[in-house]
């Protein structure tokens, strides 16, 4: 079980006001991080989404200085496929002008930005920071990076789905293999059993489950089964 099973399932409420900042707070506390921010632009609707757990003083300063126009954690990181550790950006003069000020506000200097690419040219950026020393940060990051990738995509999908038009475009398209795996899961079979039944490795079953969870906008397999049943993609177990 991931530590996220207790988190609010964001995609339950497309179109409604969702507590994205509360979601970021939950990510920080379960992964041992100090602050988190999310930013994206929906290229279809043109809407900009941004929210953060940073203190208000920093938010106001950041906006009044128009730092978002030069902040390399937004500008550069959005073009990477891999998470960008801020260490990689700190030779950049723009990074220094933004983050020297962040330091004055008592904010941590270590961080990583996870870029998420969506199907319609949309890119979401989840940034998290930590006040750990450089070496402690390095080892902590390697422990949480896999979870961070998962929550970043889930968050980005939820934000994009919160817009009506995008929600309609982003229909969950499961392959017949993914539906098969979910169907056997609904029938109570274990990953190993399903692998044996379908003559595929149990790791392949896991990859299909992972993919199904993401397509259905859920963090747990139980939620994915429920969602798939309600969408008529599989039969109730």
């Amino acid at each position, binding site marked *: 079980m991931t530590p996220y099973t207790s988190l609010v399932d964001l995609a339950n409420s497309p179109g409604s006001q969702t507590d994205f900042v509360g979601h970021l707070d939950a990510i920080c506390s379960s992964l041992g991080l100090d602050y988190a921010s999310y930013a994206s632009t929906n290229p279809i609707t043109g809407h900009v989404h941004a929210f953060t757990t940073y203190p208000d003083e920093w938010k106001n300063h950041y906006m009044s200085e128009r730092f978002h126009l030069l902040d390399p954690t937004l500008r550069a990181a959005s073009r990477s496929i891999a998470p960008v550790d801020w260490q990689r950006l700190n030779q950049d003069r723009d990074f220094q002008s933004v983050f020297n000020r962040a330091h004055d506000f008592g904010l941590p200097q270590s961080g990583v930005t996870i870029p998420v690419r969506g199907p319609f040219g949309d890119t979401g950026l989840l940034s998290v920071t930590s006040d750990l020393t450089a070496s402690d940060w390095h080892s902590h990051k390697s422990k949480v990076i896999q979870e961070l990738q998962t929550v970043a995509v889930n968050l980005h999908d939820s934000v994009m789905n919160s817009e009506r038009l995008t929600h309609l475009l982003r229909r969950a398209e499961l392959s017949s293999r993914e539906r098969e795996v979910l169907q056997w899961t609904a029938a109570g079979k274990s990953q190993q059993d399903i692998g044996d039944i379908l003559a595929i490795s149990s790791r*392949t079953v896991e990859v299909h489950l992972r993919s199904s969870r993401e397509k259905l906008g859920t963090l747990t397999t139980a939620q994915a089964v429920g969602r798939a049943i309600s969408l008529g993609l599989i039969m109730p177990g």
Partner: protein
Amino acid sequence: MLLIVDALNKHRFGALLDQMYQLRARVFQDRMGWDVNVRHGREIDLFDGLDPAYVLTLNNSYEVTGCARLLQTTGPHMLSDVFHDILDGEPPLRSANLWESTRFCVDRKLLSGGQGTNTVSYTTSELMVGILEYAKSSGITDIITVIDPLMDRILHRSDNAPYDYVGKTADMGKVKALAALIDCSEERIQKVRNFAGITGNIFLPEEEVASALAITNDAVLDPTVAAYCRDQIDAATNERERAAAIALQNALAGVQTGRTRAFDA
């Protein structure tokens, strides 16, 4: 040794990407007969325009001896947009922890008759370990890779057999292609490292490669032009100006050696 080139640093390594595009043309069109688009001796497709990450193997002279291209599966990638035949019309896998690797190849000509780390077999394993280690450190658990049956046999022979396949084997011009799953686990990384005798860190520092390439440029440039380029690079007041000055130097070096650049980083 390996270098990762992506949108954040490609302005420094345009010359390497150019070598890579030429290698891909030789491998995928000339040798394997894939139905790919080659112009001016370079194989470039629309996925190269989507800011992928490239894993490059370099020899001791910093020449490209192998390459692979990585993309996220949450956004546009080859299995979602091009390789429909392999998936038999089914929607592709989509996962935060799954990357797609395509255009995996090594330079048989450059490596033929090589010794030690300079062989096809070593470079293939090194490239594979590079992909797995880079992916693992990025929170990726599995790679889906589009390969041909020959590469599939090479993987089996190098103690690196895919744990499964997705979809079916499809025709790609003269040869067939299939989508294989490979886990980015420590066990697999160790197995491939042991098979090829790869030890220690295999990633080159970006600075080392950049300065080595600058020296190569210096050697081919006319002394007056070389001095001008150095002045321009030194006089740069920000990263953007510096990148532009280096790009100019690389471009001029390309002209003077008769290399033309189809792709301007």
